[in-house]
């Protein structure tokens, strides 16, 4: 019997739904070790960790090469390397941060590349699948694979509700083959690709796995008849700079508290996974001070979305799409630099948030234009991979 071919994956959790079906056709090699462990715990056979291919010799070789690359950067600094001719103050500070930054980042990247090199040399994968195209990890896989003639595939882990054709780093495309959730994402990237849907949202269509509104509310101790709002928070990333960053988010949070208090609502704060741990305390203190009752949670998003009469998203979040799939009305609290399309949920800077919440209705059109193959995306996405990686 011919062994299954190898498919290399970055390991993003948004593609987890695809892993069992992919494992029927491929042995899966994960760059992210935690993802490999999770796939193993899911009972999938033939799971490999790409870092497991790295032996001591290759590891040391990569570290040595990283040291030489760092030396090159140090020499350039001594010879007057300039970041920006227009801002001399920044150039003079470069020796204080660049050497350590470069050494740490380059060493990690080069060790990772060495592991990919070892894996590819031994197993000869038939393709690479990534969920994003910006981090050092995904790019190591994609760029190495392209250099060696291995097909590279990208199914994005989220919609980016930024200006279409933006120069934001998230709009960059490195992989050769793109797949999209639907109309919006295909238009946003503006390149050829295959519309497969979003595998990570398939389960939202399988009602047996989702609590009813009544059960979600009971489970969270919400008294019958209490207006319930879910606030989906976000975090400030420095890959784009708009407005006043964290200060804008804090101002919006205060608006949210004010609206929840006015409506005498139970407020569920659904934190973004990227937020720091101490933010929980911050939200708790804010709610106590504003005398707003509720709960703060990071996981089990479906409970927060099902229990709510309305979901308020801080900026145009993909959580808003999930809420819309479940039929829960959504309101966008604006932030600078990003926005749902005009056919998406209604939004506000906050001064009329109460009125927006009370007027919000389910928006099936939003879901229709975001998502193809609702509930069946996994099948389509796996078919797309199999059509390319043979």
């Amino acid at each position: 019997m011919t062994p299954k071919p190898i498919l290399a994956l970055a390991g993003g959790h948004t593609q987890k739904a695809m892993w069992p079906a992919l494992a029927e056709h491929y042995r899966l090699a994960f760059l992210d070790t935690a993802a490999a462990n999770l796939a193993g715990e899911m009972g999938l056979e033939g799971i490999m960790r790409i870092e497991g291919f790295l032996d001591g010799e290759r590891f040391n070789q990569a570290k040595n090469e990283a040291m030489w690359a760092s030396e090159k950067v140090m020499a350039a600094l001594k010879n007057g390397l300039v970041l920006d001719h227009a801002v001399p103050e920044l150039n003079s500070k470069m020796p204080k941060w660049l050497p350590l930054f470069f050494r740490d980042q380059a060493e990690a990247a080069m060790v990772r590349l060495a592991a990919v090199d070892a894996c590819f040399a031994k197993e000869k994968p038939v393709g690479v699948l990534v969920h994003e195209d910006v981090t050092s990890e995904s790019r190591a896989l994609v760029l190495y694979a392209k250099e060696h003639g291995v097909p590279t595939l990208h199914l994005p882990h989220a919609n980016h509700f930024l200006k279409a054709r933006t120069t934001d780093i998230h709009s960059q495309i490195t992989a050769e083959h793109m797949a999209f959730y639907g109309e919006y994402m295909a238009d946003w990237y503006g390149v050829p690709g295959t519309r497969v849907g979003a595998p990570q949202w398939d389960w939202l269509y399988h009602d047996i796995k989702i609590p009813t509104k009544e059960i979600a509310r009971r489970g969270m101790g919400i008294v019958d008849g209490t207006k319930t709002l879910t606030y989906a928070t976000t975090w400030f990333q420095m890959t784009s700079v708009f407005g006043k960053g964290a200060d804008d988010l804090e101002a919006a949070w205060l608006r949210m508290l004010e609206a929840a208090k006015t409506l005498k609502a139970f407020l569920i704060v659904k934190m973004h996974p990227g937020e720091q741990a101490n933010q929980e305390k911050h939200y708790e203190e804010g709610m106590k001070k504003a005398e707003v009752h509720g709960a703060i949670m990071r996981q089990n998003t479906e409970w927060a979305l099902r229990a709510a009469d309305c979901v308020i998203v801080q900026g145009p979040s993909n959580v808003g799409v999930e809420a819309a799939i479940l039929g829960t009305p959504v309101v966008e609290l604006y932030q600078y630099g990003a926005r749902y399309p005009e056919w998406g949920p209604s939004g506000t800077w906050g001064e009329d948030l109460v009125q927006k919440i009370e007027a919000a209705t389910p928006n099936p059109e939003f879901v229709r234009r975001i998502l193809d193959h609702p509930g069946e995306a996994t099948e389509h996405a796996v078919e797309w991979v199999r059509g390319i990686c043979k």
Partner: protein
Amino acid sequence: MAATQEAQDPLEKGAAQWQERARGLAISWADQLDLVYLGVPLVRLLEYPMLDVINRLYEKHHDA
């Protein structure tokens, strides 16, 4: 600016004046260095964290 006006043309509002410049610098800073390992240009791997660092530096500089 009134909130309603901002809402009509929101996407480019509030963008930091150095943003486009920072995006370019996150790649171009190492133009002369030829940093390649196993056929992969390292500067492409470091672009994301470099962009974060450069934006922080510019923000600090402009706030000072």
